[in-house]
C-alpha cells in the first residue's frame, strides 16, 4: 500500500475508533437539535433568536443564547447523517438539553451511534485534508493526521472547524487554476464566519482582473444563496443570530483578552471588547494595502488570519484547526503552536466535556464525575484556573504574533515563495483537486 493511502486510512481509523465515546455537550448538542429542526423543515434562526429574546427579557442584559449561529449551509452537512441515524434508531430523543449550565440527559444505547454519525462529516474533512497534504508532503500529512489537538477538536469533541480548514485549503489550492472554485470553496469556509476577514484580501488581489473577479464572486454567490433565502424569509432572526450575536460577543478565549472573564460587568466588558475590533480593522487595512497584492496567497491568507487571531474578539480553542493545514504548508510558520490551545482546553472546560457519554453510562461513573466536578468548581471559584488560562492565552497570542512577524519578514525579504506556494504546486495538489471537483461538477 502506498504511503499516502496508509496515512489516510490510519487517520480515519484513529478518528472512527474515538468518535462514538466522547463529545462536547454544547456543540454536539447544537448540531443535534439543529439537525432535527432542519429535517422537520423548521427555521433554526427563529428558534435561536426567540431563545435570545427570552433570555434578554428575563435578565435585562444583552445576553445571547449560544445555539446555532452559523452559515445556513453548515447544517446540511450533518442532516443527511442524522437522517440515516433516524432510519436505524428512530426519531426518539437521544440527547436532552446539552446547553450550559444544564447537564445533558443521554439515552442509551443510541448515544454512541448518534455521535459517530454526527462526526462523520468532520472525520471526512480531516481525512480529505490529510489526503491533499499527503500529495505534497507525507511528513506534514502525518503531523495533521496524528496531531492530538486536531484529533481532540474533531473526533473527541465533535467540533467542525476541520470543515472550515478543508474549504480554506481548497480555496487556496484552486485559486491559481479556477477562480470560480476558489470562490465556491471560500464561500463554504464561511460556515464559521471568522473567515470573512479574508474577503477583502481576495477582492484586492482580483481587483482589475474583472473576469476572474466575476468568476470568484460567482462561486461565492452560490454559497450565499441560503443566506439570501433566510434574509427574505426571516430577516430579523438571521440578522439577530448571525450579525448582532457574532458582532456583539464578549471578547475572550485562547488569547490575551480572556482577563475580561474576571470583570463581571457586561456593559463595561462589551465596551472594552471594541478595542481589539478597532485594531483589527486598522491591522487588516495596513496588511491588505501593503502586502495584499504583492505577497504570495498562502502567506497573505496566513497573515490575515494571524491578525484575526491577535485582534479578533473571540478565539476559541478549536479555531486554530481551520488554518492548521495552511500553517503546515508554509515554511515560515511553526506548527507546534497547537500546544497552547490544546493545553487551554484542559484548563477551561468542565470535566464532563472530556468523558461524555462514558461518564453517563452508569450511576457509579456519574458519582465519580460529581466528585471530580466538585473539585474543579472549587478551583474555578477560587480563581486558580484563571491564572494559567490567562498565561496560556497571552502566550498563544505571542506565538501567533511571532509567526505573523515571520510571515511578514519573509514577504518583505522576498523569501515567502515557498516550494509549495500555490503558483508552483505539484500536479498532485491543486490541479488534481480542481480536476476532481470539475469531474464531480460535470
Amino acid at each position, binding site marked *: 500500500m502506498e504511503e499516502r493511502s496508509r496515512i489516510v486510512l490510519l487517520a480515519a481509523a484513529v478518528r472512527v475508533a474515538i468518535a462514538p465515546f466522547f463529545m462536547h455537550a454544547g456543540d454536539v448538542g447544537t448540531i443535534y437539535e439543529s439537525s432535527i429542526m432542519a429535517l422537520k423543515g423548521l427555521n433554526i434562526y427563529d428558534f435561536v433568536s426567540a431563545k435570545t429574546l427570552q*433570555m434578554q*427579557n*428575563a*435578565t*435585562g*442584559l444583552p*445576553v445571547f443564547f449560544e445555539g446555532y449561529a452559523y452559515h445556513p449551509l453548515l447544517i446540511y452537512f450533518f442532516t443527511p447523517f442524522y437522517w440515516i441515524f433516524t432510519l436505524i434508531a428512530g426519531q426518539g430523543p437521544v440527547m436532552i438539553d446539552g446547553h450550559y*449550565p*444544564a447537564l445533558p440527559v443521554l439515552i442509551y444505547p443510541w448515544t454512541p451511534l448518534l455521535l459517530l454519525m454526527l462526526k462523520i462529516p468532520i472525520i471526512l474533512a480531516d481525512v480529505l485534508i490529510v489526503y491533499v497534504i499527503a500529495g505534497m508532503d507525507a511528513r506534514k500529512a502525518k503531523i495533521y493526521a496524528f496531531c492530538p489537538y486536531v484529533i481532540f477538536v474533531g473526533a473527541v469533541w465533535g467540533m467542525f472547524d476541520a470543515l472550515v480548514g478543508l474549504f480554506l485549503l481548497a480555496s487556496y489550492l484552486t485559486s491559481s487554476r479556477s477562480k470560480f472554485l476558489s470562490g465556491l470553496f471560500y464561500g463554504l469556509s464561511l460556515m464559521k464566519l471568522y473567515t470573512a476577514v479574508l474577503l477583502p484580501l481576495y477582492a484586492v488581489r482580483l481587483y482589475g482582473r474583472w473576469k476572474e473577479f466575476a468568476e470568484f464572486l460567482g462561486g461565492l454567490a452560490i454559497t450565499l444563496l441560503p443566506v439570501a433565502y433566510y434574509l427574505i424569509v426571516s430577516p430579523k432572526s438571521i440578522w439577530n443570530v448571525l450579525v448582532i450575536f457574532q458582532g456583539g460577543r*464578549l471578547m475572550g478565549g485562547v488569547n*490575551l*483578552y480572556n*482577563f*475580561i472573564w*474576571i*470583570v*463581571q*460587568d*457586561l*456593559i*463595561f*466588558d462589551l465596551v*472594552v471588547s471594541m*478595542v481589539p475590533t478597532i*485594531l483589527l480593522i486598522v491591522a487588516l487595512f495596513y496588511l491588505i494595502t501593503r502586502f495584499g497584492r504583492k505577497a504570495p496567497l498562502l502567506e497573505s491568507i496566513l497573515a490575515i488570519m494571524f491578525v484575526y487571531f*491577535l485582534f479578533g474578539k473571540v478565539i476559541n480553542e478549536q479555531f486554530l484547526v481551520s488554518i492548521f493545514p495552511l500553517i503546515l504548508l508554509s515554511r515560515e510558520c511553526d506548527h507546534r503552536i497547537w500546544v497552547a490551545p490544546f493545553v487551554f482546553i484542559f484548563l477551561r472546560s468542565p470535566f464532563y466535556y472530556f468523558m461524555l457519554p462514558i461518564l453517563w453510562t452508569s450511576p457509579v461513573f456519574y458519582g465519580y464525575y460529581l466528585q471530580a466536578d466538585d473539585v474543579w468548581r472549587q478551583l474555578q*471559584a*477560587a*480563581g*486558580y484556573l*484563571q*491564572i494559567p488560562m*490567562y*498565561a496560556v492565552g*497571552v*502566550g498563544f*497570542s*505571542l506565538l501567533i*504574533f*511571532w509567526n505573523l*512577524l515571520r510571515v*511578514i*519578514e519573509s514577504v*518583505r525579504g522576498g523569501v515567502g515563495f515557498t516550494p509549495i506556494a500555490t503558483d508552483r504546486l505539484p500536479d498532485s495538489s491543486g490541479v488534481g483537486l480542481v480536476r476532481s471537483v470539475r469531474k464531480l461538477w460535470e
Partner: protein
Amino acid sequence: MKLKGSLTVFFAVYIIALSFIPLLHDTLLAQARWAGYGTGAYQYQNQHYFILFNDPYDGSSKPHIHVNPDFAPASRISLVEFSDWTSWVNDHNLFNEFDVTMRASTQTLDVTYSRPELVIHKYIEMSSDAVKVILQSEKEFRAHLEIWRWVMTSINGISIEDVAKPLAIAPTTLVEFTFSDDRLQGLGRGRIVMSAMPSQIQIWPHEKGFNKITVDFVNSMMSFTVSGSMEAVGTPSQPWNYALLPYVMPVVAITVVALYLLVGKYGRTLKNRATRRSS
C-alpha cells in the same frame, strides 16, 4: 528589523496595558452599583458588602450577601443566602413555578416573580451599612422563605448545644446570629431586621451549628434588612481570594511578555551559536 522592533514594542505594551483593565475596573468603576454579567447574574460591591444575585437558571443565591471584613477587605465572607429553590409563595416554589425578570438601577435590583394570579417584586436595595431585601405585591400573599448560612454558631442567643431538632423561636422582628471563619480566624455577627412580625420563625440545626432560618408570614410587603461584620480574634493568615485576581493579571502579563522577549533575544543567540558550531 525596524518594523519588527516597533511592532514588538507596540504589542508588548498593548498586552501589559490591557492586563490592568480588571484592576482599573475594580477600583474605579465597579464600586457601589449593580452590574450584570454574561450568564445573566448581577453583583454589587461596596466597602462592606458583596452581593450576588444568581442567573435565571439557578435558584440559589437570590441574593447571596457577603461581608468584607475591615481587616481583610478583599475577602468575601458569606453572611446569608436567600434561596428560591427552597422558598414558596402561596404554595408555589419561587424558582420553579414563577416567571422571573430582572432589572437593575444603580442601587436597586428589581426582580419580578409572575404567575397568572400574582405578581411579586423582590427589591434588593443597597446602602453603605445594610442590604435590604423587600418582597412586595399588590395583593396579600402567604410566604415561606428560607435563609441559609453554613453555619451559624448561635441564633438569638440559642446555641447548637441547646437544640437537637428544628426549633420555632419566639415571634420577633429581629434575628441576630454569630458565625466564625477558620481561615481568617474571625468571629462574625449578623442581624436580620424584619418590617413586620412573621407568623413563625424556625431555626434548623446541622452538625456544628444552624444552617438555615425559615420565616413564614402573610402580608403584602415584608422587608429583611441584613447587616453584619467580622472581627479578627486571632492572627489571620492571608488566604488567596478570587477578588485578588485583578492584581495578579498584570504580573502574569509582564512575566509572559518578559519571557517572550528574553527567548526572542537570547534564544536566537543560542540557536545561532549552535548552528555555527554544527556547521
